[in-house]
């Protein structure tokens, strides 16, 4: 069970996407895990052949539990692993497969077969009634099945508990300091307007990606903020994976990573950001997206907030909050003019950096946003 965040202590295996004997390549999705925060796709970091599943769908296991054994290419088959524990779902192999294909949550299924076993028919019934994870967003007006709603409520509760645990830990362990600066967005917004005129609807940019890209590039200059706190010290990350806070419709939030943020063009970043938001809300994030962020960016401008004093998401050591882009009197070249501005706030871990470095970072973000075409 991969760690998908410091607040995660365990996860429930929802379904296997592979079966023993299947070859897998690094980066492939092999399973889906339900954490307190979201349903997440688990990817593998080795290339080989799945030898054995050790955890069965429906089982909740602590982080660090081995889910499956993957035999690397060329390795001999190992001795049989211990049997799976109790609490197995009574579902036919074929029904399980079908549920996977139709995207039906196993937890939503109720068996009507002999002995209460879940059969293909049961899966089809739920699928028809709208119990599919991905396809049911169509909102045909049909009421979701009761078990699905219950499961969602349960998930929300668990997510709340997880956020509580992480934030409490953050406030208890991390000595936060906060720095705030107001950044003129006149040039950035003008450039964006022109840029979007040239772009078809599907490729237009949101100003948010300019902020994200600026943060990523500023981290190159102040890499101490791009780190995780581990075993009593900060470990700087070579790669810059900006986690973006995404609120979920049913409540709660996730902050998955946009991998290698600093190396993506604005167009790529926009496409990936859109995709990430979509998947976060559909519950199909990848495990690495949840485990990899090296810093978090959050924006509450949509809600009209001007300044955000965020709580760092452990084990990260910094968080950048953005408020609303608002028109303010702005002094430029000795003259007062109305100009769009945004307030950027850095929350940083004082164990790792001091205000001086933090100030340099915010200054870099400001400077980068004044040259939007170079972002």
């Amino acid at each position, binding site marked *: 069970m991969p760690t998908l965040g410091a607040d995660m202590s365990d996860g429930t295996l929802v379904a296997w996407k592979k079966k023993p004997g299947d070859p897998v390549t690094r980066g492939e999705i092999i399973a889906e895990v339900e954490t307190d925060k979201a349903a997440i796709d688990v990817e593998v970091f080795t290339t080989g052949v799945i030898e054995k599943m050790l955890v069965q769908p429906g089982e909740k296991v602590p982080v660090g539990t081995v889910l499956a054994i993957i035999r690397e290419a060329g390795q001999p088959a190992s001795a049989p692993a211990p049997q799976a524990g109790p609490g197995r779902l009574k579902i036919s192999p074929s029904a399980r497969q079908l549920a996977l294909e139709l995207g039906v949550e196993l937890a939503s299924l109720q068996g009507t077969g002999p002995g209460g076993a879940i059969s293909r028919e049961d899966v089809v019934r739920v699928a028809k009634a709208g119990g599919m994870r991905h396809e049911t967003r169509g909102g045909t007006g049909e009421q979701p099945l009761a078990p699905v709603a219950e499961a969602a409520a349960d998930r929300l509760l668990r997510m709340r508990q997880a956020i509580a645990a992480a934030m409490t830990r953050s406030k208890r362990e991390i000595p936060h300091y906060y720095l705030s600066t107001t950044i003129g967005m006149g040039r950035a917004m003008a450039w964006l307007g022109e840029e979007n005129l040239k772009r078809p609807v599907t490729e237009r940019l949101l100003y948010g990606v300019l902020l994200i890209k600026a943060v990523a590039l500023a981290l190159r200059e102040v890499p101490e903020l791009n780190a995780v706190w581990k075993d009593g010290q900060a470990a700087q990350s070579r790669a810059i994976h900006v986690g973006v806070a995404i609120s979920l419709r049913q409540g709660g939030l996730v902050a998955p990573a946009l991998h290698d943020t600093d190396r993506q063009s604005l167009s790529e970043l926009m496409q990936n950001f859109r995709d990430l938001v979509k998947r976060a809300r559909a519950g199909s994030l990848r495990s690495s997206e949840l485990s990899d962020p090296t810093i978090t960016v959050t924006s509450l401008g*949509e809600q009209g907030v001007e300044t955000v004093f965020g709580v760092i998401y452990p084990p990260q050591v910094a968080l950048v909050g953005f408020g609303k882009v608002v028109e303010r009197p702005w002094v430029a070249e000795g003259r007062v003019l109305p100009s769009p501005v945004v307030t950027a706030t850095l929350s940083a871990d004082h164990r790792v950096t001091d205000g001086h470095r933090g100030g340099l970072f915010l200054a870099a973000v400001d400077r980068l946003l004044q040259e939007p075409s170079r972002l």
Partner: protein
Amino acid sequence: MSVPLTAEEVARAALRILGEIAPEADVASLKPDVSFRDQMDIDSMDFLNFVIALHEALRIDIPEADYSKLSSLTGCVNYVLAMSGGEKTT
């Protein structure tokens, strides 16, 4: 487009798209003249997706400057019909 769109078709398309973006919302009971944002939880990303979906479903081009005209259901209908040369609601 050979056959002009009707107001009903546009409204249906807009509501369908909104429903997909915000499945938890009861789109059927949206007030047509009030801004979507005041009635449901959608952000700029959702709105962008709404515009993109509208563009793809109805094959109309929507410049960014016109986004504000799409903020309500009535606004959408009027804008789209104007763009596609269809009928107009009052």
